[in-house]
């Protein structure tokens, strides 16, 4: 009972010191939120946000040409009428300006009708559509190619049908050679009626992924570990100014000191995750998935593991400076490797493999499974066990060092 009281008093004292230390509070709570806000914004595209594609069409023909009619028919007149996923079609008047815009990367690409488009179609020798797209603009290029193919195939089909009808009429003597020329001249009018439709088939509903669902867990993992790592500095400082020794001489057992420090560090971590999840839900609208309990347990295990790491670090170093250097270095190396800065599921396989050697990687994989891919509790059990494993290893080293020489 006495030892439990000691653990409690030490933990409370550490929390009081934490609350009094503005710098520590900033590192633990304010900075993570600045990062979350920033990266929430930067990573907004990941996960399939439904951005509307803009396709530009240009013609080099003189006014009155067939291409003018095609573009006129295709261009978007009222964007509010577009269905989700439908591209906006823009008529760009100047070919050279459009080309320059592509070169300057202001425009992804455009589809150009040649100056002899109408003549080529009517005279039967064909016309060459031109797709000009920036090398990086994969989506725009693909869409423009599709559009060009659709135009070519519809115009071609219309032309074959017209010729077949005219040929049949001539063969049956219903019209003469002179009239044939007239019909050919009217082909544009026939074509205009059925002209070109552009259809987009949308399969399923595209739902934008809320980036906070992977940004917040990532930074929670990083900063929980970072804060616990930095608590090593406080512990080493206490060792240096002999407050730990004073406690030891004042009928407090080593186990109680260790337990108190651990409890205090865990309490700080729990405050951090409570703030993180509350703000995440209320401000960023995150979804804890099918099993919020699993998310909470995973968070708590992350805190326990990080606290064990912090105390282990404190027992291994001699000065506050080395404690802080190692804590910062470990946090900054393990965070990107473990998928705190970007979601692991977008990284190559070898990076996902490397992530497995870090506790961060296991924690983030667990959070991603639960919050992004809709997994249930059982799916995150391996990640939970891995974190327990890391915590046990760190904790055993800390206990061994603390018993022998740490105070």
């Amino acid at each position, binding site marked *: 009972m006495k030892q439990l009281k000691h653990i409690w008093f*030490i933990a409370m*004292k550490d929390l009081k010191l934490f609350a009094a230390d503005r710098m520590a509070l900033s590192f633990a709570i304010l900075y993570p939120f600045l990062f979350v806000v920033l990266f929430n914004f930067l990573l907004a595209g990941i996960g399939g946000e439904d951005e509307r594609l803009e396709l530009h069409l240009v013609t080099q023909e003189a006014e009155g040409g067939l291409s003018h009619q095609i573009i006129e028919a295709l261009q978007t007149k009222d964007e509010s009428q577009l269905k989700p996923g439908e591209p906006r079609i823009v008529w760009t008047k100047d070919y050279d300006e459009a080309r320059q815009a592509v070169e300057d990367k202001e425009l992804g690409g455009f589809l150009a009708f040649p100056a002899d488009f109408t003549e080529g179609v009517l005279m039967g020798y064909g016309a060459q559509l031109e797709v000009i797209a920036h090398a990086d603009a994969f989506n725009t290029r693909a869409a423009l190619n599709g559009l060009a193919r659709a135009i070519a195939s519809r115009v071609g089909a219309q032309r074959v049908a017209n010729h077949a009808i005219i040929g049949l009429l001539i063969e049956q003597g219903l019209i003469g050679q002179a009239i044939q020329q007239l019909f050919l001249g009217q082909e544009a009018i026939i074509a205009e009626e059925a002209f070109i439709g552009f259809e987009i088939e949308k399969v399923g509903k595209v739902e934008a992924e809320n980036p906070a669902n992977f940004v917040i867990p990532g930074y929670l993992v990083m900063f929980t570990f970072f804060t616990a790592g930095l608590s090593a500095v406080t512990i080493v400082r206490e060792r240096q100014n002999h*407050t730990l020794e004073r406690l030891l*001489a004042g009928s407090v057992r080593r186990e109680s000191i260790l337990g108190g420090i651990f409890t205090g560090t865990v309490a700080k971590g729990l405050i951090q995750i409570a703030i993180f999840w509350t703000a995440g839900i209320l401000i960023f609208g995150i979804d804890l998935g099918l099993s919020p309990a699993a998310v909470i347990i995973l968070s708590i295990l992350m805190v326990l593991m990080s606290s064990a790491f912090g105390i282990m670090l404190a027992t291994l170093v001699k000065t506050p400076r080395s404690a802080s250097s190692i804590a910062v270095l470990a946090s900054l190396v393990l965070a990107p490797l473990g998928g705190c800065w970007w979601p692991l599921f977008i990284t190559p396989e070898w990076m996902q493999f490397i992530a497995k050697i870090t506790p961060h990687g296991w924690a983030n994989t667990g959070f991603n499974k639960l919050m992004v891919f809709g997994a249930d509790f059982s799916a995150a059990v391996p990640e939970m066990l891995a974190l327990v494993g890391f915590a046990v290893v760190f904790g055993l080293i800390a206990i061994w060092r603390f018993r022998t020489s740490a105070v």
Partner: protein
Amino acid sequence: MAEEFLVAQDLYKSFNEHKAVNGVSFTIYKGEIFGLLGPNGAGKTTTIRMLTTVLEPDRGHVTVGGHSIRDNADAVRSLIGVCPQELALYEDLSAIDNMVFFGRMVGLDGREARAQAMAHLELMGLVERAMGKVGKFSGGMKRRINLAIALMGHPELLFLDEPTVGIDPQSRNNIYETIEGLRDRGMTILYTTHYMEEADRLCDRIAIIDGGQIIAMDTPYQLKSRIGPLEQVTLEDVFLKLTGRRLRD
């Protein structure tokens, strides 16, 4: 015959190959102020760390109030108070918070810890600064808080390891008066210092330690009279004669 309160017998402690304490034996009687003097690296602090149960001796035996530090460390700890050489304080906490925290750690309940804290702060002339952050205190004030914390729980034996180092004469005088007051109330004190006039004023008996061994132990009067007429000899003369003038690390 005075009652023996602390008995140290044949204490040894080595760090790697270095013998920090090499067969130290002495007795402190109840109610006396016992001075442990020595140059830097003589073994004073290592001896105190063993006596306060922080370090385990390689060899030797210590009893405090009849309890062995090996077999009944908890009972020993309940009898002692320690004022370390370093300012073992939480600078981001207030004076009262520091004192109450250490008071709770020696087993006082909240009310008693607060009452003792205020009484000791008054003794040290710091009651007006009770709510002030220790980090903003002067060196002398910190030293006084450091001593006041050691008094929490009313220990029977107080270890004072250089409690007046680096402070102004006013604070030093306050600490002297406090220590004399504690002795008058029957507290037993082990005192280390580098200031010889301080040891001469406060200590009933003095042990001089060098090279991990006690090289002299007696009252200040007897130590001084060993080397010359009392009116011409200071304790510093005795100290220098016994430990030599060679500079220490």
